[in-house]
């Protein structure tokens, strides 16, 4: 009986001590991790809105640029990041999150459209668990650049805003190159980006236009 009690007390004390140490480390680093997350997201938003930020920009520079050039608003539960020109007078674009199930796990991205919502300005994916060298290439510039200038219109029937097809000369401006060897990821991206774009055009954009 005594032995058993000792085991319980031992385990309790051990767990208590280690949990305390881990919690302390966590609390100590919480702020830094939060800043990292925030800066990463802001960098992505600035990038898709075509606001230049250097690769080597410090966290503070990013935060300042973001403060100056971007205003975040909520439109019917949809977060919308409004990009402003250098002088802050005119709107240069709207960025909003896109995302869905990838091949291995959820994919998170950010997409921006021009002030008339007539074409795409930029897209970037910032969190995913796709295979490095294959599906993970959705983050590479050659892939995301293709989306730039893509004309937008609400989907009707089966017609999608854009298609990802095997690399080669596309039939129209809405046929982009998929990633060779990552058919699953390409299909997933095609599906959720089309879906989110369509939802934006149908719901959010109407409200934005009204003001």
């Amino acid at each position: 009986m005594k032995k058993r009690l000792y085991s319980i007390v031992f385990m309790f004390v051990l767990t208590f001590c280690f949990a305390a140490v881990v919690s302390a480390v966590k609390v100590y680093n919480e702020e830094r991790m939060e800043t990292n997350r925030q800066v990463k997201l802001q960098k992505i938003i600035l990038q898709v809105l075509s606001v230049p930020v250097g690769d080597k920009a410090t966290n503070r520079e990013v935060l300042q640029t973001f403060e100056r050039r971007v205003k975040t608003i909520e439109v019917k539960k949809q977060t919308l990041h409004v990009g402003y020109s250098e002088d802050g007078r005119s709107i240069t674009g709207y960025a909003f999150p896109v995302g869905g199930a990838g091949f291995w796990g959820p994919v998170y991205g950010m997409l921006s459209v021009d002030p008339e919502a007539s074409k795409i300005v930029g897209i970037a994916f910032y969190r995913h668990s796709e295979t490095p060298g294959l599906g993970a290439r959705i983050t590479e510039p050659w892939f995301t650049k293709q989306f730039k200038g893509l004309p937008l219109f609400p989907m009707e029937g089966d017609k999608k805003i854009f298609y990802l097809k095997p690399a080669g000369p596309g039939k129209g401006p809405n046929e982009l190159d998929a990633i060779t060897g990552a058919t699953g990821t390409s299909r997933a991206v095609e599906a959720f980006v089309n879906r989110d774009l369509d939802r934006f055009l149908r719901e959010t954009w109407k409200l934005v236009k009204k003001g």
Partner: protein
Amino acid sequence: MPKPLSSSQIFLQGLWNDNPVLRQILGICSTLAVTNLLVNTLVMNAGLIFTVCMSSLTVSILRNFTPMRIRMMAQTIIIASYVIIVDIAIGAYLPDISEALGPYVGLIITNCIVMGRCEAFARNHRPWPSFVDGLAMSLGYSAVLLIIAVIREPLGFGTLFGYRIMPEGFTPWTIMIMAPGAFFTLGLFVWFLRAKFPQTAEEKKQGL
């Protein structure tokens, strides 16, 4: 009580005679997962070295107080705590690499080498030799991972530490990026070393 080993003997064991990957075939999961880029491999190695050394040390310090029946439970909480600390540290100071390694840092908890050393060595040796043993074993593991990564990254991406080393026209071997590439590389590597430097009678008989 077995005759105490000297530090250099322990090092020889960990790096060569009892190398966790080559001889014991332990820790294969992470060997397959993180060796397609050298930078990731280095960070993973650093994490494992810290975890193995600290857990071995802690288990050894507590060895005379830990009840036999619940020792595994105690080891698990010790190992898990160190791994979470590593995970938080990488997340706070190396956010990009933390992203690339994904769940694999957390999975150090289940790396057989960590608990294997606690069970096999640290729980019946004094703290200092346990620490040295942890260091030797994790360095042995790291050495093998680095060699595999040096083979996989140039063939899979055409780069080494992110710098392009392969000629312009080189077509990357997609398989080298994925787990099967690591299977082949590791298998051939283990076969080669065991055939070249046989330890058991059976290995000696078969040769290269």
